């Protein structure tokens, strides 16, 4: 068997060394009544050549981004992943290593994380970053837990413009962790001072906004919100799109205390939703409340620079029930993808990817509005996603467009029943003018 090294002769020698007659004896501690007396009922084993064939045909039952024109975004983005990213991730010294517990033999992973942390800090304008979390949604949850811990309060005020997928996850956690979730704010323009004061009170641990928000809007007033929140002793949490941070002011400059969110857009394939990575950065003062791994630089016995996992006293394997979080495995390889991606692009490349996405989104928006049957959706400036109102059933449209090789736009009623005639378009730098014009033509015919 290719994956099991022992031959019958090896087994015999080893059994002799152990002093038992057969392997079954090694399982003697398992009560007899529990020992399976039948084979598991699983499909017959498939040798690699057949297995690969079968899995290729399963894959062929999906329509991948390369086979269609994708206008879906909503938190998972069809940005180009440079070839180099896959080649580096394919180095088995990275992907077949465990968490770098033994620092001296894991400097590759550790230094890469240190570089990742630096990039996340520089992008968000905040002081410290961890080594990654499961995804954008759970990163928001962890940010909330930092805030509730820091403030010892349990009310959380969330913008309706926060990705509903994140809000759903947050709702689950709040439910079980006895936190109070209030959804309100923004999404239809700037909130008034009163509205803010009504929502954010002395029980509020945190206010959460998204930047740009789920609808693609770049909301004004984050700084103002920070002031209100801080005045009430609450923290401001911002789920920011890291690609947008190539062009937009970093959350740290807007008064945000914790920036967090989904890092998929940075060099990770869409992968049907995962694995991706949650990132989280915060002001120095909250460092010891951060969940997850953190890497720090240090020196070895001879004074040479090196890296280690640090501040582990926050973590579950040391602190157990008093840990800042239960997270153990994270999304290290996805964070490596983000690190390689940002290294390739540099500041200019990132700004370009952001700008091309923005320009193309605006081109499409303008073209779409020429179509009878399409009218503006939510107001205000937007990044690379936008909403429009369609004179058609959005779900039916969604299905019809598949026939034309088009995936999207997303019917918003799925998440916002009240926005039943709105759809959400996303345009990344990958969409060509030809594709955009094609979409406009097809939609013109359908509406």
């Amino acid at each position, binding site marked *: 068997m290719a994956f099991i090294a*022992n031959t019958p002769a090896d*087994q015999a020698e080893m*059994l002799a060394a*152990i*002093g038992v007659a057969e392997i079954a004896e090694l399982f003697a501690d398992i009560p007899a009544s*529990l020992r399976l007396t039948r084979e*598991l*009922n*699983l499909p017959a*084993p*498939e040798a690699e050549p057949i*297995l*690969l064939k079968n899995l290729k045909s399963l*894959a062929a039952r999906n329509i991948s*981004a*390369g086979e269609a024109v*994708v206008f879906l975004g*909503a938190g998972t983005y069809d940005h180009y992943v440079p070839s*180099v990213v896959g080649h*580096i991730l394919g180095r088995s*010294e990275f992907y*077949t290593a*465990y968490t770098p517990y033994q620092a*001296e*033999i*894991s400097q590759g992973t550790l230094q890469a994380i*240190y*570089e990742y942390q630096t990039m996340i800090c520089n992008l968000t304008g905040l002081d410290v970053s961890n080594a990654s979390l499961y*995804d954008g949604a*759970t990163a928001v949850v962890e940010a909330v837990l930092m805030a509730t811990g820091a403030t010892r309060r349990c009310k959380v005020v969330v913008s309706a413009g926060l990705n509903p997928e994140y809000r759903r*996850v947050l709702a689950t956690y709040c439910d079980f*962790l006895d936190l109070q979730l209030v959804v309100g704010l923004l999404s239809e323009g700037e909130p008034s001072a009163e509205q803010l004061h009504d929502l954010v009170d002395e029980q509020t641990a945190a206010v959460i906004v998204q930047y740009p928000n789920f609808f693609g809007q770049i909301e004004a007033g984050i700084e103002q919100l920070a002031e209100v929140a801080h005045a009430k002793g609450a923290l401001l949490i911002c789920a920011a799109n890291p690609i947008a941070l190539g062009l*937009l002011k970093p959350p740290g400059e807007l008064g945000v205390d914790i920036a967090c969110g989904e890092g998929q857009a940075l060099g990770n394939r869409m992968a049907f939703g995962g*694995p*991706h990575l949650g990132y989280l950065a915060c002001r120095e003062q909250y*460092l010891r409340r951060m969940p997850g791994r953190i*890497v720090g*630089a*240090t020196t070895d*016995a001879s004074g040479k620079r*090196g890296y280690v996992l*640090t501040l582990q006293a926050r973590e*579950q394997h040391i602190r157990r*029930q008093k840990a800042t979080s*239960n*997270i*153990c*495995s994270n999304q290290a390889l*996805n964070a*490596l993808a983000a690190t390689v991606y940002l290294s390739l*692009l*540099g500041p*200019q490349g990132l700004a*370009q990817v952001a*700008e091309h996405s923005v320009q193309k989104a*605006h081109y499409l928006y303008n073209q779409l509005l020429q179509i009878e049957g399409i009218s503006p959706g939510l107001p205000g*400036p937007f990044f690379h996603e936008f909403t429009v109102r369609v004179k058609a059933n959005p779900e039916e449209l*969604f299905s019809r467009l598949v026939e034309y090789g088009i995936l999207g736009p997303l019917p918003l009623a799925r998440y916002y029943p009240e926005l039943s005639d709105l759809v959400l378009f996303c345009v990344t730098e990958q969409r*060509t003018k030809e594709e*955009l014009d094609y979409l406009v033509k097809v939609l013109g015919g359908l509406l």
Partner: protein
Amino acid sequence: MRVNNTAGVKPIFAESVPGRTGFSLPALDVPSQPLSAILPADLLRQEPPVLPEVSELGVVRHFTRLSQLNHSVDSGFYPLGSCTMKYNPKINEDVAGLDGFADLHPLQPEETCQGALQVIFELEQYLCEITGMDAFTLQPAAGAHGELTGLMLIKAYHRQRGEAATRTEVIVPDSAHGTNPASAAMCGFKVVEVPSNERGNVDIAALRRVVGPQTAALMLTNPNTLGLFEENILEIAEIVHEAGGLLYYDGANANAILGIARPGDMGFDVIHLNLHKTFAAPHGGGGPGAGPVGVKRALEPFLPLPRVIKDADSYRFNYDLPQSIGKVKGFYGNFLVALKAYTYIRQMGAAGLKAVAENAVLNANYLLAQLKDYFDLPYPRRCMHEFVLSGSRQKANGVKTLDMAKRLLDFGIHAPTIYFPLIVEEAMMIEPTETESKQTLDEFVQAMRQIAREAEESPELLQQAPTKLPVSRLDETAAARNPDLRWRG
């Protein structure tokens, strides 16, 4: 290759030169507008973010060199207990790299992702059969995430029965992994520790003392983190169930029992598996993992949404699950990791999985037999897929387990898990896995015996280890005292 005198790899920021880049985009092919006309001027960055400016070769060389500073399964033995560092079949990587899986948007229409839905549906079924559970969710992203999800399910169950307010305690053995108490606490439970007895099992008498109407659940790893099978599992299940509590199974050690025994048959109500351990998905230097959660029928209604169901010949998502706890992660979990596990199970089949457990246990017992005279063995029993030695004998000579671990690195072998479980002094937890050959095990035995000898004869050799790696022993205390967590140039 790495040359011995290499002065480390500079942080990539230190390699940066303004204006250099490793990427280029096609020219913008739509009419463009000034950014200030479409984006709020006051929200535009004044300064570009500080990111490295490096050529494509520069990036490739930097990360290639970094990779060369890592130990990995592909480069050497990795007997890190509890982590099941088995070989990760290359075919799994190929499958997960197919565009038809890797380039799917999670929100694309169901009719355009039938292959992916089928993988999810069938993998859940396989995991049910392997574990004896009735239903699975693939949503949790890792083991700890699975634990938290499982505890939410347990809470939901008690809520439904109107007992949530009273059942506030989760019992955890003192040998448990840190994530167990952490997850319980995170989910709002009080953690009650139950001690182990001299055979390394849960102390039944102690368990009886802490169990009661306040008990929400007992979390158990079986085989436990000592590598020992919980012999009294049926009695334990009875005790907890009788008190109205549920049994949670931490599946991190499921590699030992594949095809041999099933947690579902042992009385567990909720379990998680670590696909990145038992099912051969690589660990990625820290992740991604996947921690699917399985439940008995009574808890199925609470599983996270959506679930994949099969209608005749097609698959779809079901979001209409009124009792569901909701979502615990965006979308459907770490899909590509699940896909690797799916591929693995299809390749192994039932007989293959059973052979995994048999050989994992055989390898561990072989190592135990070869090493038990050289180190203290706190629980002198047959082990399952891993076992725990104590370095107390060597400690007496001034050599800590940490020193021995560091010395092992000099042999090109990863250290065992050390100082865990907490109940063993100077613990070394050794898990060889089934993919290692007797020859590799013998080399490890030689190294460990040599280290035992060195601990007696030349302790300073160990205290100064490692000496043959790119860096010598790193100062963790200094790192924590003066955190330097980002490059500032």
